[in-house]
């Protein structure tokens, strides 16, 4: 037998996995902090999902102006290149190994071969995956014409191919609504947006799209079946009650040649699970401290791999934060805190991150409520923090800044709740 060819070894302070907004912002920040950084992305181009998000609405916080997705991505990419950050596209990560706190290995394939990179820290910014038709219980024929929203978006906005003429969209989150607009603009007929919940899943400005194009929105409904010969021909829709159970006799069919599934995103954490990173079932992403470090020391996470964000601005912010964490970790050989304050979910808080706070730094808490409410107070009784909010919705992530001083007032835990004011 031939001996195994030697896998070339590269060495960096930090490897960033994922070249989307979180990864690029992390790599830029890491470089600015003087770290030797390598960025890897499996796509042929940088930007992650942004180059296909051609609608405006990005960057109002981060760049203080309204950009489209590709514009946001190209600004970060330009800065990356200016700083001379090393990156590889078409680089697929096969495995992450955690030998010790300051010895981590990332093995990746690329058009020029297989490599292993040794690094002291890893920033994992691999984004999320889309939930697919089987996951939301749609049965029926296995036909052409069923796409996730992201697939349809790639077809239309990268390759210039309209995926269908008569389209039913499952899910009224931002992605589904934005795709409804793109289909309608390009001349397809959007026959319905079907939403399981009794309220739309997206931001108000995106719900407006339905009005612009006279697209029917079916709230408290779900698509249960798809039928066709070769290609989608019709989909079966059924009403659901307040417990999300199907209402007998309420089903009807919609003729369509395309079904687009926009049923939410799930953080991409398979490779992290393999090395023992603890996952929070509520966010679907890793349990992290206030430096966005996972439960495996030196492995940081940012962006939609951490939790599903609705603004790219927060994604980029998390990337920078993870880079600062990596810097601190590498310099001190670990992130130490005298005590960790555990963040607990109180009333009407569905998910929250980070999970542990040191009180050494100011921190942003990112949280989502479980159900819509008006006239509420976001409260952290343990430290006497209160914030009045006129309205909260599951679709809109709440970002709350806590000062180090405030956190220091907490004992071993801190409960965050959203209650009627």
């Amino acid at each position: 037998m031939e001996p195994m060819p030697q896998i070339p070894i590269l060495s960096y302070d930090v490897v960033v996995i994922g070249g989307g907004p979180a990864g690029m912002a992390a790599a830029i920040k890491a470089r600015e902090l003087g770290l030797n950084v390598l960025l890897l992305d499996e796509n042929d181009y940088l930007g992650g999902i942004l180059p296909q998000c051609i609608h405006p609405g990005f960057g109002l916080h981060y760049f203080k102006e309204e950009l489209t997705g590709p514009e946001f991505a190209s600004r970060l990419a330009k800065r990356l290149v200016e700083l001379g950050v090393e990156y590889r596209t078409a680089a697929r990560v096969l495995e992450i190994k955690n030998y010790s706190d300051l010895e981590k290995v990332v093995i990746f394939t690329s058009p020029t071969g297989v490599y292993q990179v040794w690094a002291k820290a890893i920033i994992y910014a691999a984004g999320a995956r889309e939930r697919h038709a089987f996951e939301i219980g749609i049965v029926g024929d296995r036909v052409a014409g069923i796409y996730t929203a992201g697939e349809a978006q790639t077809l239309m906005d990268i390759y210039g191919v309209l995926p269908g003429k008569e389209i039913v969209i499952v899910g009224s989150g931002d992605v589904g609504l934005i795709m409804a607009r793109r289909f309608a603009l390009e001349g397809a007929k959007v026959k319905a947006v079907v939403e399981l919940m009794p309220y739309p899943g997206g931001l108000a400005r995106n719900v407006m799209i339905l009005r612009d194009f006279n697209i029917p929105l079916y709230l408290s409904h779900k698509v249960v079946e798809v039928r066709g010969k070769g290609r989608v021909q019709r989909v079966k829709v059924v009403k659901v009650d307040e417990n999300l159970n199907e209402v007998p006799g309420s089903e009807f069919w919609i003729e369509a040649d395309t079904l687009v599934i926009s049923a939410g995103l799930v953080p991409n954490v398979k490779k992290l699970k393999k090395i023992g990173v603890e996952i929070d079932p509520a966010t679907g992403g890793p349990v992290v401290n206030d430096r966005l470090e996972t439960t495996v020391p030196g492995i940081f996470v940012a962006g939609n791999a951490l939790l599903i964000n609705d603004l790219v601005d927060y994604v980029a912010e998390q990337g920078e934060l993870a880079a600062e964490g990596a810097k601190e970790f590498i310099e001190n050989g670990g992130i130490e805190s005298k005590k960790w304050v555990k963040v607990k979910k109180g009333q009407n808080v569905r998910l929250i991150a980070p999970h542990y706070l040191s009180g050494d730094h100011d921190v942003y808490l990112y949280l989502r409520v479980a159900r819509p409410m008006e006239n509420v107070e976001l409260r952290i009784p343990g430290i006497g923090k209160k914030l009045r909010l006129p309205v909260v919705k599951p679709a809109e992530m709440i970002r709350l800044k806590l000062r180090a001083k405030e956190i220091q007032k907490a004992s071993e835990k801190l409960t965050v709740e959203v209650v009627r004011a």
Partner: protein
Amino acid sequence: MIYRFTCIVCPLGCSIEVEVENGEVKEVRGYKCPRGMEWAVQEVISPKRVVMTVIPVEGGALPTVSVKTAEPVPKEKIPELMRFLAKLKLKAPVNVGQVVAEWEGIKIVATRGA
């Protein structure tokens, strides 16, 4: 005629009603700030949108470039604009921010390079 909107100016999402009689705005209700009121009136009188699409490009890394209108376009003119944009073809190189066409005085700007 009463028009009802969920305001999109800020995350508050006020429910605004605009009452119109004989083509004139008579009353605006439900807003909590002047920006919201202006927006709702604008929505009734002449709603405008930034329009985005992709244009085929020859010789680029990707088969299309994405474009947007440099300013919001009156809503009723969008189908006409889309038909104009559908006829365009470009050749690489195209840079982000480059004006690739003009339609009725509105600049069409590339938002992706090729």
